[in-house]
């Protein structure tokens, strides 16, 4: 079982935090911080396994991580997972991210693979992409790879296909970004005096007539 998947940058800022076991938010942050400090002091050319599992579980747990330019991908797993297998899985995950974002947006890639097979992240573009609209997307991709702490799919093509199908579905619905924009204009066009009045009445079931078409 995978207990947790953490992605953070070189400064320890979390980029993706996914626990498959319940921890209160402050503990989660603490785990991220401690894990960050654990992996930060490790050179890049030493092994990718850490027995610092005391954060999450007993001695049965291991931290398996990979470091790509500015990002750390850390998986906390128990002994039922193969160490090398998880390393491969991280690679699959990262490559999938690359592939998905490449296909979605040709402006800037999160990851480039150069000839030495080493991953470089374009700092400027990463920030924009990773943090903002991609945050959800990364979660969705991860959900196709790992589900409830168990490996769901390792075939990259399959993962990409499912993600793309879902994104198409979302697009056909208009997407989230489109919806609020329209919703905003709808709200803006509402006859203003109505809003305060309704609020004053305290009627919780205000029906904004223009909105129905966007729901």
């Amino acid at each position, binding site marked *: 079982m995978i207990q947790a998947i953490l992605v953070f940058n070189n400064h320890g800022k979390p980029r993706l935090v996914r626990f498959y076991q319940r921890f209160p938010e402050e503990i989660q942050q603490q785990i991220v911080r401690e894990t960050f400090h654990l992996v930060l002091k490790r050179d890049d050319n*030493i092994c990718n396994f850490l027995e610092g599992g005391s954060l999450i579980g007993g001695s049965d747990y291991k931290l398996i991580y990979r470091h790509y330019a500015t990002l750390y991908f850390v998986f906390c797993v128990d002994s039922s997972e193969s160490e090398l297998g998880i390393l491969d899985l991280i690679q699959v995950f990262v490559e999938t991210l690359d592939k998905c974002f490449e296909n979605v947006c040709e402006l800037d890639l999160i990851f480039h693979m150069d000839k030495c097979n080493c991953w470089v992240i374009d700092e400027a573009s990463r920030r924009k992409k990773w943090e903002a609209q991609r945050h959800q997307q990364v979660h969705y991709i991860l959900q196709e790879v790992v589900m409830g702490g168990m490996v769901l799919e390792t075939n990259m093509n399959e993962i990409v296909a499912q993600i793309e199908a879902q994104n198409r579905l979302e697009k056909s619905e208009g997407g989230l970004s489109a919806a609020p924009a329209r919703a905003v204009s709808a709200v803006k066009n509402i006859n203003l005096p109505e809003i305060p009045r309704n609020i004053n009445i305290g009627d919780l079931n205000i029906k904004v007539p223009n909105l129905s078409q966007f729901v």
Partner: protein
Amino acid sequence: MALKMVKGSIDRMFDKNLQDLVRGIRNHKEDEAKYISQCIDEIKQELKQDNIAVKANAVCKLTYLQMLGYDISWAAFNIIEVMSASKFTFKRIGYLAASQSFHEGTDVIMLTTNQIRKDLSSPSQYDTGVALTGLSCFVTPDLARDLANDIMTLMSHTKPYIRKKAVLIMYKVFLKYPESLRPAFPRLKEKLEDPDPGVQSAAVNVICELARRNPKNYLSLAPLFFKLMTSSTNNWVLIKIIKLFGALTPLEPRLGKKLIEPLTNLIHSTSAMSLLYECVNTVIAVLISLSSGMPNHSASIQLCVQKLRILIEDSDQNLKYLGLLAMSKILKTHPKSVQSHKDLILQCLDDKDESIRLRALDLLYGMVSKKNLMEIVKKLMTHVDKAEGTTYRDELLTKIIDICSQSNYQYITNFEWYISILVELTRLEGTRHGHLIAAQMLDVAIRVKAIRKFAVSQMSSLLDSAHLLASSTQRNGICEVLYAAAWICGEFSEHLQEPHHTLEAMLRPKVTTLPGHIQAVYVQNVVKLYASILQQKEQAGEAEGAQAVTQLMVDRLPQFVQSADLEVQERASCILQLVKHIQKLQAKDVPVAEEVSALFAGELNPVAPKAQKKVPVPEGLDLDAWINEPLSDSESEDERPRAVFHEEEQRRPKHRPSEADEEELARRREARKQEQANNPFYIKSSPSPQKRYQDTPGVEHIPVVQIDLSVPLKVPGLPMSDQYVKLEEERRHQQKLEKDKRRKKRKEKEKKGKRRHGSLPTESDEDIAPAQQVDIVTEEMPENALPSDEDDKDPNDPYRALDIDLDKPLADSEKLPIQKHRNAETSKSPEKEDVPVAEKKSKKPKKKEKKHKEKGRDKEKKKEKEKKAADLDFWLSTTPPPAPAPAPVPSTEEAGVNPVTASKDECEDTKTEAQGEEDGAEGQEQDKKSPKPRKKKHKKEKEERPKGKKSKKQPPGSEEAAGEAAREPVQNGAPEEEPLPPESSYSLLAENSYIKMTCDVRGSLQEDSQVTVAIVLENRSNSVLKGMELSVLDSLNARMARPQGSSVHDGVPVPFQLPPGVSNEAQFVFTIQSVVTAQKLKGTLSFIAKNDEGATQEKLDFRLHFSCSSYLVTTPCYSDAFAKLLESGDLSMSSVKVDGIQLSFQNLLAKICFHHHFSVVERVDSCASMYSRSIQGHHVCLLVKKGENSVSVDGKCSDPTLLSNLLEEMKATLAKC
């Protein structure tokens, strides 16, 4: 103006999406918290909007904030709102937020049940998928119970995407709702052979996860996994399976033997390091589980060690690390093969990677022998000096101590050396492990009597040296060793060279800077020292000297009396008074030494750490009994007011209930146990029966293991441990010479040097004799200690609940709860309706018959279980060709079929049980319910239902068949293929205004030449139907089985009554002579219809049609066996062709499978081979080809008549399409 402001704020509020939020957070680095709290306020406003898009956007932002550590549980209800949005875009956002923030404590989670159920049965696979993913993160016991059945249905979904998710989530469901494991397991097992690799891998994943916790329940799956292992090419699946085998082998050594060869092959052939590594790991596990006696045993070990060496030597640090990890496993059983790589491992100690150094250290632990201990420890000591960073140095320190002290100091030949190592370790600055060193010093000094003199001299110099005292101010743990030093010098003061000097050292003012507990020991041991000095002086007649010592004590003790530590203060004051008293006596010239040393007479023996726990409870002592009855008990309260006046009598009534009311007592005891179980501080008594051993008190009975050997070495002065290494070498050399001499004299005589403990001696060890005469006193245990080691299992372990015997047939009470009512919607096909209803109602046989049936079933079950066990045994005992998995040959009941039959048996069990259990509760409940037909809500459901139904309603073994067919992309279909239309195998038998009869004929391979006819009776009238009897006119070929003693003309009673609107199923068994032709039987159902107006006798005639297809039983067949069958040439052939078929090939095959009980053997494009078998063992093979608008079916069968009849029937079916 105000309105404008409102409008402006609304603009801003809606404009902010996640991207803006992220940008905003970055731009407000200084006051991030403030900015975010402002954002949260906005989000709260947004959540109040009615627009779902705005809500979703808000929830989206919350998910991001959650990652940053903000609690978003307050928005749980809004998240649910977004989850229930109809658009996928929003749903996905909602479920993601839920999966990030929901947990068992989220109270609104119970509101989600229906929403999730709806999404699970949604026609869009992505709605279903997103619900499954979300649920996997926040499933609670309640959700698991309520949704288990829905998820189980999804395991047979047409889309592999859903199947694999459903399979995976089952593990979470099992964890939360263990009762679901047994009902769901057969289907889970089927999925191991799913045609989709993703689903297969998910199933393997789940079963491995289950088996890891409770391996013994999954041993029976070994043949199946073995087959998968030899056939699968998916490395993920292979790794999981191989890991699973690693967990199974310890339970079944024979399995290990079987595994060795394929695993070795894999090791040789694979290029994937991950797979290689897991193979090596499992081979190691196998070798550990095998005691010995395998011829290629050592070869396998060699292979493993050799491969691991390659890993360790690899430049990839990951491989190096794992190599060392696996090496440590080999080490436990085959230390010798690892020891030869000592050089490599010592090399790893110099690695720059701390993880690797730690692993190497672990290995060293197991690699030491008497011969190399000193050398290894010396190497480690140099690392201690070099090490930067206290963590690693501390680790080294503990490792050194572990290595030396392991198995009762087994490898230490020279304890002086060990003491000096410990003393050297005290020079470590800043270690946290001072107490460890101290414990070792104490342990060695107490248990190795011979070393006491040396130890005392070392300890006194420790007490003397200033560095430890100085360092105590730095708040590090090394001053702990002074605790040991002081105690040893005090307790064994008779060995001190200069006791006076030591006494002064211990009374130095600086001592008061030490921690309190150390000072306390100082104070206590100062007196011991003082006592022994006093005795010496008095014996020597130096009265003045004695008085001087006393004076010293009187002068110095007050500094301890002023201590802030209570313990120190108390001891010091006591002792000061004592010494003052002695001083008075001394002034009168009274000899006091005897009396003073009497204070410390006797020896302190080491007590085992577990000793307290092992003290048996004496007979007659009930630890659970109250010493004083609790006051709050209501019953005793009644008597209290009276008791106030006569106190004498009060006691009696108080006692009485405890003697008389045993029930009450038992109840209280139970309550107390409960309480104690929850109290972490309560030491539990062992429940095992107490044994009384002969108790003979005294020191003589402490077991002492003696080793008497050559001359003790004495090294005066402060030693350096290095010198021992040199000395040791010389000594060994000498011993060797001596031994050689002796050997010449008397060959083959018993070896010198008894072993201390039953450790496995290696050749090299035996040559080395300890340097000292050592008694290692074993630790004291209480007399009549309980011998058994209590298994400290955590009762709260969630995996314990999953320790369930899966081979046992399902019991009636075990079925998954099925959602019985769905939101109303008009039902579109009433005909399909009644089937599930009927299924629920199923039979409610009269007790007599039920009993009879059950008995038979029980017997069958027993047989099956035995058979299954035998199967595994058989599978394990034979040594079949390694590479190909045993393929079942349908014509024979050979061993190879066993895995398959076994699984089929189980399916059947499930089926029969599932049906059996549906009577009773559900039936009764149904009786009260309104007679309206059931209604369904979703189209999807309609597709789902018949599927579930099908697997239940088909003849025995059909479930297996479904799994079998599922292996082909026929039934489940590739994503582009349309879902199968719903079908029912029940056909109309007869109907009138009272009753409608539908029936299904099922063959069974178990009962020779018997078919079961399941008849669903549906009451369509307003009357209660009762006294139903079914009479059938037997023919020569087919006879109805009747209860014993009844004649051919008697009817068979239907074991239930039907209230209005209710339907139920009855089963009747027919014996068939010949199956080659179809058969029609005339029959009548007679019943009494009773309503308000009265009762009438009614009857309904019917014709029971036994088609040839109904004699067929879906039997799986593998393509190679199929080919063999066709090759044999003793099958006759026939064919039909049907034109004008528009049906897709997939549906076509499904139809044939369903109506004619075939299973698909192989399918290539629009051509498929199929197989089935009659209840009398005829093989029927089909080749189905689809042309433009036509279908041709070629058949081969061992009976030509049967074949032609079957093809005719098939033609009729196809023509209907």
